[in-house]
């Protein structure tokens, strides 16, 4: 059983438009059986934060190609991408490099 986590989720490069224009979200992830990884976080974001057009942010179980993910200011490719296990106080940043955000 994983304890609740406090995580900072941030959006940039226009991705924030899908989240009411709010860039920084300080969120608390509830405790659950499995540990929290990015895969779960995306599902949680889709359910709780995403305001419109989910297909412009999430495709399949990952982010849409063209959206970069930084975990604590490092490339998520170094950290196992979707399998990275979140720690308390982590910060996750999504930057859209797509034209028009």
């Amino acid at each position, binding site marked *: 059983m994983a304890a609740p986590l406090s995580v900072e989720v941030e959006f940039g490069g226009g991705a924030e438009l899908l989240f009411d224009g709010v860039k920084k979200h300080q969120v608390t992830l509830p405790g659950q059986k499995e540990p929290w990884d990015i895969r779960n976080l995306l599902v949680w974001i889709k359910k709780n934060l995403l305001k419109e057009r989910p297909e412009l942010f999430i495709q399949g179980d990952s982010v849409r190609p063209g959206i970069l993910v930084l975990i604590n200011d490092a490339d998520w490719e170094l950290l196992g991408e979707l399998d990275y*296990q979140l720690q308390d106080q982590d910060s996750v940043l999504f930057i859209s490099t797509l034209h028009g955000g």
Partner: protein
Amino acid sequence: MCQVGEDYGEPTPVGPTPLQPGCELKCVKCKEGLPVVVIRVGDAFCRNCFKAFYVHKFRAVLGKNRLIFPGEKVLLAWSGGPSSSSMVWQVLEGLSRDSAKRLRFVPGVVYIDEGAVCGQSPEDRAKTLDEVKQILQTVGFPWHIVALEEVFSLPPSVLRYFAQEPTGTEGAYKAAVGSFLQQQHAPAQGEEQLSVPGTQGLQTPAGPPIAVQTEARPPTAAQTVALSRLFNSVKTLTAKEELLQTLRTHLILHVARTHGYSKVMTGDSCTRLAIKLMTSLALGRGAFLAWDTGFSDERHGDVVVVRPMREHTLKEVAFYNRLFGVPSVFTPAIDTKAPEKASIHRLMEAFMLRLQAQFPSTVSTVYRTSEKLVKAPRDSSAGVPPGPRCLLCMCTLDIDTADSATAFGAQTSHLSQTQPPTPPAEALTAPCCSAGVGRPQGCCQGAGPCGREDPRACIIDQLCYGCRVNMKDLPSLDPLPPYILAEAQLRRQRAWVLQEIQEYLIEDSDDEAHTAES
């Protein structure tokens, strides 16, 4: 999809990772630092090495091409987006370096406010402009803010090609660097007299950047209405994007010419250029790929567009801006929140990026292709005056009436039939009123070169294939800004006069016959 992870082949930490990210990995360059960004498959860089790599690439692109002469005035086209912001920052940093490595040109920044066509309210536009000004003041270069509405007051001459004496030889570059260095050692008054190829006869370039600011008068409501009317009349998002790009280019060119800049730098990244290459192909602009996507673009003659960010991927740009605090302004674009299949541009972007996610060399492969393209104008470049140019994109026309076997030929020959071979006698009266900027389309109705044609054909005739296809999505050309209509009229008249006097000319020049045909 599971292959994606395997491709990267990094020893990704399995199981719960402590807070030190990638503790088993080291930077591939210095073998010491903690890596923060993966640039190519398996190449992880630490913060410092990434910065050195990024800065070096920018300078190397400029150094390799030797197009920008010392002391030359260069206009940085800044949209507020990540790539062009990064470019402005690279220039800023490059100018403040120690003498040996210092960039030696004189920059200015232009920002085009496109809020009117991107669905921004006047309040939002004002807010964006405040942010823009704040950043421009921090940067400290001379700047020019222009509203897109100003296309309605552009002169027709924007659409003309101004030849420039050839400069780009190796020797000329070295000589220019030499004389620049000499002048720098000379007392300060020398700085004022830099003779820079391409800026002669224009305003004297200022020595050190002086914060000259030109700010657009706020556009009149009527102009904003006219602009919205124009864009609302366009039937597809694809054509809207192309039109926006055309008008934006004309405005930047106008700013560059009126303020004596002989180069314009745009922030096109490698990723964008790869997408643009594929998009251009799909839009029927294959003939101009080398100009549309190459390092330098000489289609305007006196003002050369260069793309110094063309070796940086968008990922590198985004990471650099994030890690080193490069400010940018986010403004919604014309296609913001549009679905993936809304336009060819959008579709091609999604296609390329999705491929890239699975095959990480997609973008670089396409981009390398763009590097290999050679600019070969139909009428070999040396000495021969350029043939007729497209009214909108200003590329040498790719229209070939002899080529009737293809769909392309069929379309163009259909159009050429609309031109009467010789004008009937009553049209021999003086060409109708000099094309006033105010109501040029009125001209076409009277007797004169376009008298029997509808004004639409008169404009379409002067476009390249890609622009013709694009203009099909405009039901009426009347809402186009006056300078385009006026220039079309002027060209038509010129061609008509040429045709008129042709029989009195001694038949020795192929050029004129060629021009008259167009």
